[in-house]
């Protein structure tokens, strides 16, 4: 006999796996072949590869012919099939309650998933940057001479380079200089040009701090020289209809026809970036690095690995004082983590519209509430429904069902219901996403790998809850004695279960109450804001942008004034309620004054109400000079002047140690030019008789569309091909309350759903209670009780529960909403009516659900009820 080679067996795990699935009658020959084959391959290719190949061959037996057929003669399978069958039959039998159950749970799931994913998006802002935890924004507040501090996001241009040179912790720093509302006319050639707002001028270190993935070009060199441009994918497509545009040249017509060379194409700025742009180019202003006087740059730093931001923070004030020895007052200088900016920073001049942390909390709480209500509902309905099946359980036991199989049956039913609900909930959530894109201001979908994962996790959580819910009736029902169960005698231990159900109902209605009150308060506040006198007339005011592009603004004005639909045309540098400039004036105490430059016609377009003095006038040559201004009442007050000073020359500012005089030509009534969370601030108007960037046109109501087309053609005649861009002032004012509008929208949906779910819950519980009391009702009627008396008896019990719920909800909602309202400078008051509405509406819902059923029970024939059993 030849000596056998050292035998190494094929992997046993593979063998075990094979035995698991392979039919037993095939196993011997298959294993024999596989082992023999292993022997051959081991000699040819070595043990390692042979073991891999062994697995390969084993897996190749996963074919229908070789896999065990479990369907036949397996008791377990047959039993499970029957469970599913019975579960299905039972659902069909109680279509109504099953539908309610699935519906209420799926609505809860949908709400939760929807809000959860939305919040995840809100909380995930700016996390896409590599090392986002090391990126911070450095901001310096503004301080006025009277010590008043104005939180402000902007910093002087010298700050960023100084930070880099002075602190070892700072690995890279970058300045961002946005367009400040400027629209740059850019294009490939004269024929193809667009106005672009999304141009950011920045330093070459931009990509050292931020990560925006490059499609073409190189982050290292893309901004090394001036006249280089990095553009986003969609900008590239817009101008060139392709993405690979590195080396192409764009002309910026509004920057003296500067030609910029494209050196990089990046992916579009993600939705969840707190600043957005389409074009990046280099800052080219001179002497920026020593300039501490301009306040229009944003400073971002990336810290070195392991550097402590708190340490840096502590050194910043001293550093700032060293850098600016000439100052009397030093404003607070501090850092903000980039990931916190979207939700937690609410400074003046933010780069974009930020979210609001308190709204996040409110949404989160609401989502939890709705999910909680619907889970409670599910629990209540399931328990209630299963108690009706006492006899079925009894009969099953008589036929020899083990306790375990009864438990399995109930669990499978619960599982089926929950799976339906989860699937329906997912569909609903997707439906909500599709229909709320405009409310949320962004497109979202559940069918997104990351969101799908979230949904999966939530689904698993709900499944577990569902199974736990199924467990209660499963254990409870299967524990009865056969004889009692068949007779339908429920043990006396029903009391605590009933108490539990009642307290769950109270919780549901308390939550609904809080939500109703909350929604009404938000609604009232919004109404209050919308009805607040703006202090001017924003209706029918058309704002035209880029009026500087006109060859002659005067001509257009004359043309427009000829139109019957136009009552007044005025020019201005900014929009009241949009962007305006600020300056400091006042002597001896300085005041921060928001201002625009406007002409007398613009003042009448806006219909400002003069409290004292007069409008600008072209008849007074001095109106267009120096510090001759119109201010609002708040401005007059903060300047320390009285109405008597109007029209007189007064010292108004100090420049280079010379006190300069100016005069207050007129005072207008206070008006709102920022959102209503802040108090009215000083505002002023200067008059310079020259073309301005914006035209305000007051239209008369008749024939709006005709007037619009007339205006547009007049524009086109004079605008040298610049596009006609306009908006209505009242619309842009409406946008100031966007956050609150969004909140109200989402809240009213959720409140409606919460009431709906609570309604279903109460309906089901009432139904059950009345069935339990059938005999009691019958006996009472036999003894002479009236229909209304009997029905009131039942209804009043439920109404008491709702009242208790409202007593809990009232104070809770009061506290929460009081705090929310405190965030507004102009707020509505919390009246009694709000609470009355909540109480009455929940009582009505309860009365309607219970009253109808109890009335039906009360008018039924007592003989029928008594004869049963």
């Amino acid at each position, binding site marked *: 006999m030849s000596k056998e080679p050292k035998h190494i067996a094929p992997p046993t795990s593979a063998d075990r796996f094979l035995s698991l699935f392979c039919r037993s009658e095939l196993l011997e020959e*298959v294993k024999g072949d596989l082992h*023999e*084959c292993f022997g051959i391959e081991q000699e040819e290719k070595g043990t390692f590869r042979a073991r891999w190949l062994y697995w390969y061959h084993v897996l*190749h037996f*996963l074919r229908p*012919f*070789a896999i065990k057929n479990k369907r036949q003669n397996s008791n377990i399978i047959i039993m499970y099939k029957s469970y599913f069958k019975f579960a299905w039959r039972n659902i069909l039998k109680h279509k109504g309650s099953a539908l309610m159950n699935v519906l209420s749970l799926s609505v809860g799931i949908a709400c939760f998933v929807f809000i959860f994913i939305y919040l995840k998006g809100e909380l995930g802002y700016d996390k896409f940057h590599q090392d986002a935890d090391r990126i911070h924004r450095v901001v310096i507040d503004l301080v006025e001479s009277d010590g008043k501090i104005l939180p402000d996001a902007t910093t002087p241009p010298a700050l960023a380079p100084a930070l880099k040179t002075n602190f070892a912790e700072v690995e890279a720093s970058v300045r961002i200089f946005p367009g400040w509302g400027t629209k740059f006319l850019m294009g490939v050639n004269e024929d193809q040009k667009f106005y672009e707002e999304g141009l950011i001028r920045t330093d070459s270190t931009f990509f050292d701090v931020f990560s925006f993935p490059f499609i073409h070009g190189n982050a290292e060199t893309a901004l090394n020289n001036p006249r280089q441009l990095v553009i986003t994918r969609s900008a590239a497509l817009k101008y060139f209809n392709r993405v690979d545009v590195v080396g192409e040249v764009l002309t910026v017509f509004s920057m003296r026809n500067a030609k910029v060379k494209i050196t990089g194409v990046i992916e579009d700025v993600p939705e969840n970036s707190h600043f957005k742009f389409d074009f990046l180019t280099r800052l080219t202003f001179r002497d920026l690095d020593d300039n501490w006087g301009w306040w229009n740059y944003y400073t971002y730093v990336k810290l070195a690995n392991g550097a402590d931001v708190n340490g840096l923070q502590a050194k910043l004030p001293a550093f700032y004082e060293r850098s600016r020895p000439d100052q009397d007052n030093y404003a607070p200088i501090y850092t903000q983590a980039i990931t916190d900016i979207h939700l937690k920073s609410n400074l003046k001049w933010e780069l974009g519209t930020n979210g609001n942390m308190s709204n996040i909390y409110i949404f989160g709480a609401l989502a939890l509430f709705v999910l909680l209500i619907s889970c409670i509902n599910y629990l209540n309905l399931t328990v209630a429904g299963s108690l009706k099946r006492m006899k079925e359980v009894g009969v099953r036991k008589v036929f020899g069902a083990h306790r375990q199989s009864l438990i399995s049956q109930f669990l499978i039913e619960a599982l089926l219901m929950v799976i339906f609900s989860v699937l329906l909930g997912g569909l609903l959530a997707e439906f909500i996403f599709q229909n709320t894109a405009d409310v949320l201001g962004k497109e979202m979908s559940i069918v997104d790998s990351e969101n799908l994962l979230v949904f999966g996790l939530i689904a698993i959580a709900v499944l577990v809850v569902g199974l736990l819910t199924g467990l209660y009736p499963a254990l409870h029902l299967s524990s009865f004695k056969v004889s009692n169960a068949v007779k339908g005698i429920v043990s006396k231990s029903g009391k605590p279960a009933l108490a539990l159900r009642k307290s769950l109902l109270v919780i549901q209605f308390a939550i609904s109450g809080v939500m109703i009150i909350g929604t009404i308060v938000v609604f009232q506040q919004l109404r209050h804001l919308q009805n607040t006198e703006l202090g001017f007339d924003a209706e029918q005011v058309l704002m035209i942008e880029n009026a500087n592009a006109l060859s002659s603004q005067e001509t257009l004005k004359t043309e427009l004034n000829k139109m019957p639909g136009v009552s007044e045309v005025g020019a201005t540098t900014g929009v009241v309620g949009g962007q305006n400039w600020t300056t400091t004036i006042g002597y001896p105490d300085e005041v921060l004054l928001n201002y625009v430059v406007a002409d007398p016609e613009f003042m009448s377009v806006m219909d400002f109400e003069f409290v004292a003095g007069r409008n600008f006038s072209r008849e007074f040559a001095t109106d267009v000079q120096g510090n001759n201004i119109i201010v609002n009442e708040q401005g007059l007050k903060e300047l320390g002047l009285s109405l008597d000073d109007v029209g007189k020359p007064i010292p108004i500012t100090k420049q280079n140690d010379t006190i300069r005089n100016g005069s207050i030509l007129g005072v207008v009534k206070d008006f709102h030019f920022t959102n209503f969370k802040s108090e009215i601030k000083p505002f002023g108007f200067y008059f310079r008789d020259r073309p301005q960037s914006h035209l305000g046109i007051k239209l008369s109501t008749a024939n709006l569309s005709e007037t619009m087309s007339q205006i547009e053609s007049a524009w086109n005649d004079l605008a040298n091909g610049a596009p006609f861009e306009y908006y209505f002032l009242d619309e842009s004012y409406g946008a100031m309350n966007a956050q609150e509008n969004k909140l109200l929208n989402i809240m009213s949906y959720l409140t409606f759903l919460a009431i709906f779910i609570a309604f279903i819950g109460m309906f089901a519980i009432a139904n059950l209670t009345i069935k339990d009391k059938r005999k009691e009702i019958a006996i009472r009627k036999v003894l002479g009780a009236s229909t209304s008396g009997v029905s009131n008896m039942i209804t009043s019990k439920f109404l008491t529960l709702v009242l208790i719920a409202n007593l809990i909800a009232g104070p809770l909602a009061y506290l929460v909403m009081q705090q929310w309202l405190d965030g507004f400078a102009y707020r509505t008051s919390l009246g009694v009516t709000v609470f009355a509405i909540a109480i009455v509406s929940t009582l009505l819902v309860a009365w309607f659900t219970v009253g109808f059923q109890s009335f039906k029970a009360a008018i039924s024939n007592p003989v029928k009820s008594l004869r049963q059993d």
Partner: protein
Amino acid sequence: MKGTQLGEFEELVLLIIGVLYPNAYGLKIRIEIMEQTGRKVAIGAVHSALSRLQDKGFVKSQLAEATHERGGRRKRLFQITATGKQAIEKNHELRNSLWNKIPDMALKGLNYGGSF
């Protein structure tokens, strides 16, 4: 009828069973196929084909005596049945008759790289 059709791979397996008679079993068939055709075939594929052939009644099988070489596991030996033989014969005849019907013209010029 579909059930009595012979797939290409099945035909190959059936022929090899004939070739290997009387010692045709799973692994040996696989090795033979690999040697004759140069195709890479998994054992599972061969077993699957064998099981289909048996279902169609083209082969019959029996377990052989246990031997030591496979750790005492028995082989299943396959043998062509009469229907199996008919099936390959039918295929063979069909091919031959089709081959003969191809006009010379169609193949003219399609030489094997040699010269005329």
